[in-house]
């Protein structure tokens, strides 16, 4: 797709109309509310519909609740045996397909990430019930591995046939004595997207694991990092930076997590939320139950990383830390700036689209900005309205039938462990100094006027968008990758990073700069036409030598 063909001007409302024109009326009406032109409307931004049902037959990017629970949240946990109760497929597909890196490999800690375990339900189990088999499977897993914990995941038929996985888990936990067993009712049909699965997973971890550690964690400036999944080693890079600054990361939820790290999360003094969508409620619960305040951070983008580090320092309000953080930033930014300077002439002015996850479509705009690239359109796969519009809309969110069936847990201050880390006054003072607690402004605010924000983008709209706006780069997931690339537009996976990464932190920024340079400047996109297609006429007199 040559430069010459590019649309120079387009009206976002026209684009929206074009995206909708082929739909049946009912679909068009629904999608119209999920496609939003980002523009000022008398002191407010327009409302977007999100976290609603996927339309049957419309090819979606979304996965299911089980995927969000087992795949996303629990996948990165290395020393918990994750046992899927269901037919074999659900376990198979979630087997090593997310790039959950762990450093438990050569550790004394167990590492079960490379194992896919399943009860492989058969028709007899469906007919006669699967509890017996589940019990036997838990026993076999216990006998083989003697793990600290076994997590059981329900798949679609389990809820329907009525297996009581929680009762089984409880029974086995009691039987073993030295192994925590707990279960997740994360049947695939629940909720409307992975988001419900995150919620179910986080609630159970919070209920069954957090606060369960015997050991006291020492170290200065103790934080939790919530909503970071260590894809491509992002978590390793963030830990490297935190470590260098002298900040102690008690527990990441759930990148490179272990049972004990989860269990110790209550010992941190600050929760830092990366992926707002998948975990903001855990931050709230940690505050309510243990008195740990939380702030939104972002380690995607070098500037964002520096800003997040400064926020943390500001929170702890300690000159030593502040000084160290500034030192680290100065030191780490030098190569970042050099790398950016190298690629900038080749990336600036290019355009991108991002449709992915529940935070990345926002966070990665930081990096594109650093590259001088403009984001034309973006949206989330499984976000809620607050992820677009900011947390101020939370009180106004409608709870529909699909959300209602996702368990909300009630949390109150822990009689023993609740301890407010900051007094009301301290919090107020910090807020006055610019530390926003419990605040997230959302995607829309970060995007330019007249860009297009689309929730739950589907295959049809993606193709249309690319055809109409001809971006230089498209970001989404593996299912989207090759249909976009067939159109001659490079496609960067922001779930799996196309086996690249880390892209977080300072080193990650450099990696990303180089990767985007490679993608938008690859020679291959110039090869789509053969010479005889470019010059199809036959030369009547071929010029023999």
């Amino acid at each position, binding site marked *: 797709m040559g430069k010459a063909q590019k649309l120079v001007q387009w009206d976002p409302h026209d684009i929206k109309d074009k995206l909708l024109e082929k739909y049946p009326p009912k679909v068009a009406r629904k999608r119209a509310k999920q496609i939003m032109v980002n523009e000022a409307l008398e002191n407010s931004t327009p409302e977007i519909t999100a976290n609603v049902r996927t339309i049957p037959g419309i090819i979606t990017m979304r996965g299911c609740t089980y995927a969000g629970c087992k795949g996303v949240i629990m996948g990165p946990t290395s020393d918990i045996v994750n046992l899927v109760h269901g037919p074999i497929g659900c376990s198979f597909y979630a087997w090593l397909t997310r790039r959950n890196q762990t450093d438990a490999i050569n550790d004394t800690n167990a590492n079960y990430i490379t194992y896919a375990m399943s009860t492989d339900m058969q028709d007899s189990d469906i007919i006669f019930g699967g509890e017996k088999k589940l019990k036997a499977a838990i026993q076999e897993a216990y006998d083989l591995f003697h793990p600290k914990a076994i997590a059981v995941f329900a*798949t679609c038929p389990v809820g329907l046939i009525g297996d009581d996985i929680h009762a089984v888990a409880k029974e086995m936990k009691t039987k073993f004595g030295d192994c925590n067993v707990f279960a997740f009712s994360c049947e695939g049909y629940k909720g409307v997207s992975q988001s419900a699965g995150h919620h179910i997973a986080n609630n159970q971890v919070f209920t069954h694991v957090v606060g369960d550690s015997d050991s006291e964690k020492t170290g200065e400036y103790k934080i939790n990092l919530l909503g970071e999944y260590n894809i491509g080693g992002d978590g390793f890079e963030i830990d490297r930076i935190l470590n260098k600054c002298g900040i102690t990361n008690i527990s990441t939820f759930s990148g490179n997590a272990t049972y004990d790290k989860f269990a110790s999360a209550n010992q941190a003094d600050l929760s830092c939320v990366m992926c707002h969508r998948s975990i903001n409620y855990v931050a709230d619960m940690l505050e309510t139950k243990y008195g740990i305040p939380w702030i939104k951070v972002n380690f995607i983008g070098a500037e964002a990383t520096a800003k997040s580090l400064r926020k943390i320092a500001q929170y702890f309000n300690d000159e030593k830390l502040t000084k160290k953080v500034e030192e680290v930033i100065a030191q780490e930014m030098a190569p970042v700036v050099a790398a950016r300077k190298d690629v900038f002439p080749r990336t600036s002015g290019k355009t991108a689209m991002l449709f992915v996850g529940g935070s990345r479509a926002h966070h990665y705009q930081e990096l594109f900005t650093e590259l001088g690239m403009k984001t034309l359109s973006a949206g989330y796969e499984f976000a809620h309205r607050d992820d677009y519009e900011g947390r101020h809309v939370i009180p106004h969110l409608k709870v529909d039938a699909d959300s209602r069936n996702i368990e909300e847990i009630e949390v109150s201050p822990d009689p023993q462990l609740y301890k407010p880390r900051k007094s009301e006054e301290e919090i107020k003072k910090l807020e006055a100094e610019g530390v926003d607690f419990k605040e997230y402004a959302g995607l829309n605010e970060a995007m330019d006027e007249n860009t297009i924000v689309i929730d739950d983008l589907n295959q049809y709209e993606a193709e249309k968008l690319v055809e109409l706006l001809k971006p230089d780069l498209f970001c989404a997931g593996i299912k989207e990758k090759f249909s976009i690339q067939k159109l001659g537009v490079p496609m960067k996976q922001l779930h799996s990073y196309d086996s690249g990464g880390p892209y977080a932190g300072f080193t990650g920024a450099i990696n990303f700069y180089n990767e985007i340079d490679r993608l938008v400047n690859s020679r291959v996109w110039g090869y789509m*036409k053969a010479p005889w297609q470019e010059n199809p006429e036959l030369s009547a007199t071929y010029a023999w030598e």
Partner: protein
Amino acid sequence: MLLRHTPQVITERKALTINPAKTCQPIGAMYASLGIKGCLPHSHGSQGCCAYHRSTLTRHYKEPISAATSSFTEGASVFGGQANLLQAINNIFTVYEPEAIAVHTTCLSETIGDDLPQIFNKAIKEKKVPPGKTLLGAPTPSYVGSHVTGFSNMVKAMAGLAENTGTRNGKINILPGWVEPSDMEEIKRIAALMGVKISIYPDTSGVLNTPLTGKYNMFPDGGTSIAEIRDSGNASGTLALGEWCSADGARLLDTQCKVPCSILDIPVGLKATDRFIDALRTVAGTSVPDEIATERGRLVDLISDMHQYFYGKKVALVGDPDQLISMTEFLVSIDMLPVHIITGTPGKKFEKRIQEITAELNCEVNVKAKGDMFLLHQWIKNEPVDLIIGNSYCKYIARDEDIPFVRWGFPILDRQGHQYFPSIGYMGGLRLLEKILNCLLDRKERDDTEEKFELVL
């Protein structure tokens, strides 16, 4: 050690599957459906199934995989998925305009008891199916059989479209089984060389190995047209390749349309290809052209030239029954020793075939249907091998045990080539041997002391 918790001592497991050597039916049905021209596969269940299948197939082919889903919610799970499927059919025909929708069920819709034919009838009655368009459906409960069963069920659904109009079309039907697009292309090439007119389905060539041209076709030019599938009821006979993947479809063509059939092994390796070619020649009443005889002779030649490197090498195999049967026979025929053979797909018949094929070997052979890769790994720990052949997951075992590894089967998530180069037929045999040989010789050269490092092999 990435699999360091796998103990050498084998204990029986009755309830727990670890590191499966199979997946569930729907993905097989989806793959088969992609081999119908202009067809959109549709997963009748939660959206996660479809997402997982599309992702897996995409990673295997590095190609877009289009498929829709009924996106069940909790409500649909309670009240049945009919409304979702009807809505989906309407949306699909309106937005994507396929020639056909091939619906497969899932554990969810099967547990609920959704009745596809009834829903299809309703869709037709409600005019949600434009004239000339086709709905086909296969029940593919995830809790029965494996991905192989799902493939077979969708092939059977295709065969179910066949009609005997009373006039023979002079063609031979070939049900190729679950092979790669390149393999299906190779079958067409072989049949063309032999002058045999065939109908082959499914046919994913031209669908899952499409060119990059700057244009995206949701429905590429490849695949078997619905018309051709319907016409397969008029064929002279059917050659079904692979008992597990193709026999049910072939037998349905027989009972439904009186098209007789033969069940053959998938033509992987010398002998299975010999039987395929011989059957094709016999049923079509034609002779085998020199070109094919030459390819055969080249394969025999390579076996003889490099025999010393194959001879006596122990191999561990994991894969699907039809493929494993032919691969095991191939390895035995070149004097290799397939000593551990695992499929996740159930079926005692499989174990019996393997035992027959390996009966003449002078060593113990472990074989298990409904096995898993955890057991395979344990077998290897107890009796090490010189080579592992299987899907990409084997690389964890290969790395831990430091064993050479040839990728083959499904899924291959980390290498390229399977889409473009056949591994069936004589040419495919040459390719497989080249791969095995490279792998063994690379290892030899890695391990040889400098004294023994050789220029000529």
